[in-house]
């Protein structure tokens, strides 16, 4: 039986990779993937706790997150494609028109 700690450590590792990727990379697709990594890291810990506490509510929440992530991915990718068509680049430093 895999102890809870291992799952949490895996979750933390995946989350940290996501944060690191989001902060350091400039390619918008990679940043988008990093966000997905962070979401799924949370999903791992939710499922682990759900199993550990024998409480199904955690898994219900995971389904919501997966649903939202799917929607977000669809819309996010659509936006990125639209951006790419206009700017011919996927580099976020070239997308800084929205400022005060």
């Amino acid at each position: 039986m895999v102890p809870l700690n291992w799952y949490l450590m895996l979750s933390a590792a995946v989350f940290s990779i996501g944060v690191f990727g989001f902060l350091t990379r400039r390619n918008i697709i990679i940043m988008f993937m990093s966000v997905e990594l962070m979401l799924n890291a949370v999903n791992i810990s939710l499922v682990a706790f759900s199993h550990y506490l024998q409480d199904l509510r955690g898994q219900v929440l995971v389904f919501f997150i997966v649903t939202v992530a799917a929607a977000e991915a669809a819309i996010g990718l659509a936006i990125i494609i639209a951006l790419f068509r206009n700017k011919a680049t996927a580099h976020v430093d070239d997308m800084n028109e929205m400022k005060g």
Partner: protein
Amino acid sequence: MNYYLLIPFLPLAAFLINILFGKSLLKENAHWVAILAVAGSWVISVATLIDVTGGKTLNQDLYTWVSSGGFKASVGFLIDPLTAVMLIVVTTCSTLIHIYSTGYMHGDNGYYRFFSYLSLFTFCMLMLVMANNFLQLYFGWEGVGLCSYFLIGYYFNKKSASDAGKKAFIVNRFGDFGFGIGIFMIFLTFGNIYYEPVFSQAGAFATKTVNFLGYDVHLMTLIALLLFCGSIGKSAQMPLHVWLPDAMEGPTPVSALIHAATMVTAGVFLVARCSPIFSLSETALMVVALTGAITSLFAATIGLVQNDLKRIIAYSTVSQLGYMFLACGVGAYTAGVFHLYTHAFFKALLFLCAGSVMHAMSGELDIQKMGGLKKHMPVTYATMLIASFSIAGVPGLAGFFSKDEILWLAYSGPSPVGKFVWLIGTFVAFLTAFYSFRLIFLTFHGTFRGTHEQEHHLHESPKSMTIPLMLLCIGAIASGWVGIPPLLHGGAHFTEFMKPVLGHPEGHGTHAEEWMVMAISVAVGLSGIGLAWFMYVKRRDIPVKLAEQFSGFHKILFNKYYVDELYSLIIVRPTIWIAKNVLIGVTDARIIEAIVNGVPAAIGGFSRQLRKVQTGFLHHYAIIMAAGALIIMGLMLMRSW
């Protein structure tokens, strides 16, 4: 009893009708509403006078106006002999002057406006005299002041007229400030502002003193003098007399009604109404008597040399108002009110005659450019002559009886300054007779000195103007007959009638002294007329020579003792200087504008800096978010330790 209440409310209704519908519907018929209303008030006033003569009085609250804690004021009416006489004076003069105005103001653009203001004035004046408490008195007092302002500035596109209106209003503020504080003092002292409890309890405070600016001041003196401040302003006494001559910029019927017969006598009415308070303070009475005496002398001397027809009569009004205060100051309130009542008729008549002359002269007011109008306007001449005889104190006419009573009571009364003010009063009687007849002789006698065109235009005024003149003339002759002294086998009915309100003036002297006082006042009156005749009919060269010989004195009198210039120097110009340099220059520009403009500028500056945080770079936002999350996590960890 309730039909008395219609007296003030008829003119109010007329005002509302005229101001709302005058411009669009009534137009040239606006006078009908106003005249019907005021004539109705007159009829009820006469009925009221008859009731009051029969011994009836009324003190009734109609409507609670203010009720707050211990303070209560209401719209309430007090009908007693003093009110009844004032009602007759106000409504009679008002009715006749309304009728006169239909002729005088004919064809004026603001016809309906003029009549609505006259109605409003009549309403306020009636509220003033019928009040049974000080707050309503104050309401009427300010109301008539407002109407005075409206009507002086009636020809508002004429700068001098609108300036005169402002001057009247502002000068009156000085007096009303004291009057207002006087009413506060009454409330603080008595806990009440109704006449009846205040006057009945006044005796209990006769010796009380209060601390005022570090001095112990006799309370009743303080209250009386504060109330008298209001009188000084409203009745144009020294040193606040400057507004009344300028008020002659208004239409002549207004001068007759407001600035001669009714409103300006409100100050005398106030002193008479508050006689229970004034009587408790010898100092206050002395101040009243001396103010009156000095003002009457001062105004009469100015009147000697003026050339403006209406201003001479205005100074005469100031002088006669001084006479009334002189009477009140020596304790002869009945004589003061008696003079108020007779004066209203002959002074209104003088003004209306002046208006009639102006009408004929196409607005010319300089008496040096008139002369010989006698044959062109016989009715005006005859009525003005009678009014002048009346004011000069020719025996048998109204002015004689009231003036004689004042002089006799000043001479014989208990007042410490009585003899002194009698002396001044007698001298003023001489001056009054002189300048009144200087006016008559220069205007109506001799040869015409105006332009040829003006002479061609001379005509008697229409019936609507001459009939009120004739009616007022009856008042100028006969109104004094109700107060013929016992010495002349009269009943002194007026004094008896007033006795319950104003008390009986004390006069101690022999019949011989009384004859002497009367003889002197008649003699000075007649010699004044005689001297005027000699100087302005017989020897036309004397006035010119006198003016040359005493050119300095003549100049001082002609320039009204430079009082206006003095006020301009010490009050008006410093005030304007402060307004420009301190209020506009510092307070407004530096303080108020600094706050008003500074606050938005600071917000704008801050937001300009804050805008820079929004860079548009996604990773800046990401780092800030991560840092924020880290800080929150750090704080939570520290908390859990």
